């Protein structure tokens, strides 16, 4: 006892004080994120104040900011999303099913897996170059919606694959065994047992991927999305623009009024994103509830 008090100097008060200080520091790090978020939203709302109206939504771009609008950009964004979704969702889910349910553990499988992870980290502008080379030039699709949509599809493909894989992995093994025990084939098991229970997770991933696609600007620059367009695209082979490209173009101009309509465009873009994510959360909760009932 006495030796103990001679040799240990725990200095508890000092250590507790340090602990408290760092706790506050660590907490404030999270406040930085929150305050930037509020600052950013506040700044954008203030900049766009008075510019966001029906005229802005229903007009074409113009040399005069007060007449300019985002109608073709809205159409372009929606059409682009449809093409992206039609391409990336089936391909991504099919790839995920193969990787999780069919492929045997092998060198090739881990190669594909590593490849998927690394595809997700390739800069989006490089996807733009890929799209320009393969779709615009080699396949001769031109600077079209189709070329843009496919490029965006390739970009979000890894996100769809990885999230779908996670959703499939979360399906308990016992469900599969139950299906096999009833004489189901592999595909029947996947189709009627695995996919329905993995659906909510996949849905979340898909909406996440599409949200990413809606906000991406860089890959569409090499594709040649237009910044000044007087028509609404009628077919997948028409030229197009999207919201982020339009915002980029207006932001890069020095006039304050163009900055203001850029901010108005951002507000529209953020509203679309919030809507999509709300739908994702709603769907997830709804389906999750249903699976629990079963």
């Amino acid at each position: 006892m006495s030796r103990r008090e001679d040799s240990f100097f725990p200095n508890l008060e000092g250590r507790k004080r340090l602990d408290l200080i760092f706790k506050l520091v660590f907490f404030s790090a999270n406040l930085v994120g929150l305050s930037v978020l509020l600052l950013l939203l506040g700044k954008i709302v203030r900049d766009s104040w008075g510019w966001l109206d029906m005229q802005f939504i229903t007009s074409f771009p113009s040399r005069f900011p007060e007449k300019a609008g985002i109608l073709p950009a809205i159409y372009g964004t929606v059409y682009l999303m449809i093409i992206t979704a039609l391409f990336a969702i089936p391909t991504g889910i099919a790839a995920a099913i193969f990787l999780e349910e069919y492929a045997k553990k092998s060198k090739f499988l881990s190669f594909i897996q590593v490849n998927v992870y690394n595809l997700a980290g390739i800069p989006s502008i490089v996807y733009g170059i890929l799209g320009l080379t393969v779709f615009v030039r080699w396949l001769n699709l031109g600077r079209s919606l189709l070329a843009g949509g496919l490029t965006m599809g390739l970009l979000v493909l890894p996100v769809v694959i990885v999230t779908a894989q996670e959703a499939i992995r979360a399906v308990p093994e016992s469900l599969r065994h139950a299906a096999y025990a009833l004489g189901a084939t592999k595909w029947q098991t996947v189709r009627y047992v695995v996919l329905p229970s993995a659906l909510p997770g996949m849905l979340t991933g898909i909406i996440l991927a599409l949200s990413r696609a809606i906000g991406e600007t860089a890959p569409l620059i090499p594709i040649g999305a237009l910044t000044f367009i007087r028509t609404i695209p009628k077919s997948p082979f028409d030229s197009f623009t999207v919201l982020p490209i339009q915002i980029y173009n207006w932001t890069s101009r020095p006039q304050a009024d163009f900055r203001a309509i850029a901010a108005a465009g951002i507000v529209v873009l953020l509203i679309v994103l919030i809507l999509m994510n709300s739908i994702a959360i709603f769907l997830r909760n709804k389906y999750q509830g249903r699976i629990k009932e079963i």
Partner: protein
Amino acid sequence: MSMESVITIRDLRVSYKDREVLKGINLDIYGNKITAIIGPSGCGKSTLLRCLNRMIDLADGARVSGRVLLQGEDIYSPKIDPVRVRFKVGMVFQKPNPFPKSIFENVAFGPRINGYKGDLSALVERSLRLAGLWDEVKDRLTANAYTLSGGQQQRLCIARALALEPEVLLLDEPCSALDPVSTMRVEETIAYLKERLTIVMVTHNIQQAARVADYTAFLLNGELVEFGETSRMFTVPKDKRTEDFITGRFG
């Protein structure tokens, strides 16, 4: 021989949300003795042990009431810091949990954070000797602790706790993850240590309690059914439930 109670537990209650897991425990832990806490799984024996060094504070949503006196001082008094309690009361866990550091650094961890001003190497050696591990590791103190066998790792964890020269050592089923030979070594270590400190050991293994403990407390559904000298309790249990348990009729 006068019996000194090192830890005095009075009306100790612990609940998680609405579920009471300890329902008013009264128990005295005597100095330089080994006290075993036995009982079927889920009876609250680990919770009881974790109340003795306030590790229970780390569990989410656990509420504690009652008093636990360590050498006459209530460790749940608001002016007592749990960190100071843990400095005085050492603990060894179910599964060996050495840090992913060298053998030396594992033992030196406690002394380092608690401002040890003496000869650290000597302290590490002393602790490893007490834990009966010195001869096996003296030539490879810088090796990673994960290179040791499971039993050695557990004795390293004992040495790590001993390096703070605690007055009380808590052992939470220390042999449950070990093979019989390692278990024997750990039991020998424990028996040797009671010369220097007070030991409280939770075990699900009735034979182990019979082998090493001076006193045994039998817990059932959060209540203390019986407490007494191990030799007496295992031969003439006072309570029917104790008899049923030690003869293996349940649990």
